């Protein structure tokens, strides 16, 4: 593994007071010819976001996802794992924010840039999520 991490903020876990209106906002910026990433809810085995999703911006290429959405299955404790593949994209910038009920950023949980020139490099960034 030759993935270089440039960490601004990294938090292993977050408690989300969903009943109080809190939510998570996932945002990833990819740089490269063919970004390849998947954000999954591992407990319910659902895909939250991937490079196949509609980007919110094309330049820079940026994807965003709020959690939970009405369609999301909820579990008390899960892991939201971001898998990054560097086969044709050498850089990713991944951010996760805890949002308040009013939609304001309450806390930055993850703010990391990843770089690799090795095409078969893969990196998984997990976030343990508990919710009530």
């Amino acid at each position: 593994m030759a993935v270089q991490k440039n960490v601004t903020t990294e938090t292993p876990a977050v408690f989300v007071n969903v009943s109080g209106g809190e939510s998570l906002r996932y945002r990833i910026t990819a740089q490269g010819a063919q970004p390849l990433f998947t954000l999954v809810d591992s407990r319910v085995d659902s895909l939250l976001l991937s490079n196949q999703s509609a980007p919110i911006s094309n330049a820079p290429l940026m994807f965003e996802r709020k959690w939970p959405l009405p369609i999301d299955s909820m579990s008390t404790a899960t892991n939201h794992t971001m898998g990054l593949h560097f086969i044709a994209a050498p850089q990713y910038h991944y951010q996760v924010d805890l949002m308040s009920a009013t939609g304001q950023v309450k806390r930055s949980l993850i703010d990391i840039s990843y770089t690799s020139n090795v095409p078969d490099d893969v990196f998984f960034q997990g976030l343990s999520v508990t919710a009530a």
Partner: protein
Amino acid sequence: MKRLISAILIAAVFVFTACPAFGQEILNPDAIRGQIRKLEEISVEGRSVAVQRAHNRALLGLYTQLQTALQQEIDELKKIQALTASSDTATRQDIANELNKLASASTETDKQIARLQNIVPAQPSSTDVNSAMTAGTPKVPNPAGTTFAAPNIIRPEPASNGPGSASMSLSASNLVATPNTPQTGDNFNDALNKRIQEIVRARIQQRDPTKQTEPPNVANSSTSLVNMPSAGDLVNVGFALAGLTSNNADANATESVSVTASAYAFYALAKNQDLLNPDFYNRHPNWRRLSFTLGYDNEKLKDGTTQKAPIFGWKYLIVDKRDPSRRRNQEAFQMIGKNLRTASTAFGNISQRIVYSFAKSSAVRTVLLPQFSAFLSNRLKTLDANSTEFSRIKKLQAKFENGETSDLFLPNSEGVPPNPGEPRGWSPEELEFYTDNFQNVYLGPDYRVKLKDAFGQKVLDDLDAFLTEQLADTKAFEDLSDSTRDALESIRRAPQFSFNFLTKQRAEIADEYQADTIFDYGLADRINLTLNGSFLYRDSKLVGADTRGGKFAGQFRFQLTPEKLAGRNPLFFFLSGNAELLSGFKPVYKAQAKLNIPLFNGVDFPFSLTYANRNELGAAKNKTRLQFGFAIDTARILQALTPK
């Protein structure tokens, strides 16, 4: 002067720290906040370590006092709340609101205390931390080894500012616009992003190691028996510097040089474009299909003299299935995406099982349960006695009182907290406490040190054993690795087919013309096969002495070291052979072993050992030749020299 400033700062810190100590009986949160504000206005940035430490310690003392003052106010309000239980709704609501505000302020103060505790070095004399803690609360070790009261770890600061933060400005990724950074550079960022995209796509093609950089095989002294289907992107220079034969008299007898330039290089120059401008490069792939070769071959004649025979030629790449944007390669990317999703899920599930395995450890529970009890007590103080949360916490506290804590923090059969509807589900308080006070405290940076310090070596040993058990099944990751390798191989092994024409002009003997069809295909991982089928024509200066024939050549290329997107070429080993049949001549058969050693990015050192049943002059002697030279790929050199 510096000493004077330091002395004044220390004195000011002392005054702000000492003054409240004389009047601790009057703990007015507003007054303490004012003192904190004044102290925070004093900038100690760039001051000595001693001044900064004193400043932080003073702040820590004030925040600790503020916490005590807030707790006193909460206690007072709780008393008032109890006495006014029967009063009107508005009064009760006001009290509840005020309690919420105080609880929020208390939480924020806890954060500041935790932050300052991390900054102020652990010292036995740090009594200003512990002495002001709420009396009666259990003191537990924190990951740094100091001690503090349990309620103060209720909301620890998340791990942040890792080692990479210091070098942020060096990383291109930090130039990406983020929601919290000024958007003034949007255009620049957009352009930068697009540029990087193009560069990467271009590099995949630019780094194709099958592109020919050596002199063509029409040169007698070429280090290669086989021509490759594609040429370099810009200009390649090949030198066959010397030839050592089995006859010492022929040593260093011949040499050849060739320069091959792509039509793309001429086109870019004509358009006054940067040759490696990714946008231009990606928009004009077809211009790189055509290349021209110019060179010469020093040949030894029968009379012992040498003649310089010029070489001219061109090559056109007819089929190129190694373009990453082709549909067949997109399908490979989709397969990687599917496996990446599966592997991500597997990673998350393994991670969760490990995270919650600690909840079953007696060593961990011994430490966490008292903390949880303190957490509940602290939380209870902030709640309305009529709320559901209040009664829920009371029930949790009853478990402590009755010694029934064994079902707290109990994972289900899958090793994670039960979902709603499952038996023995975790309360919101258990979830929140375990998240903020275990995972975020002990599983961040230096987690092994923190776990060992807090819970002992056995917890680490158990962790390692559990991890080994969990990683027994790694199929998801293997599948991902396989699909990645397949995709890379698919690109590398995709077929290429080209047509090549070469001529060697001689002042004496015969001019030589050669038309090749060249096919290259990947047989297996890191093994490629190249085949040449050639028509040969020798136009003799003598009337009626023209000859015609054919040549068939084949080569296996073995990649000995892995390929990377940046840096030198891999190390290659080649095995090749050819058969040449010309009218009026006896057949010539050759076999060759060659090693291509990458010296730098764009500069290779090929050397070969060739055996022939007869030499170029038709004599059955000098059958073995050691040939070496240099192969220069200017596209890769420029790529390496161009600032990223």
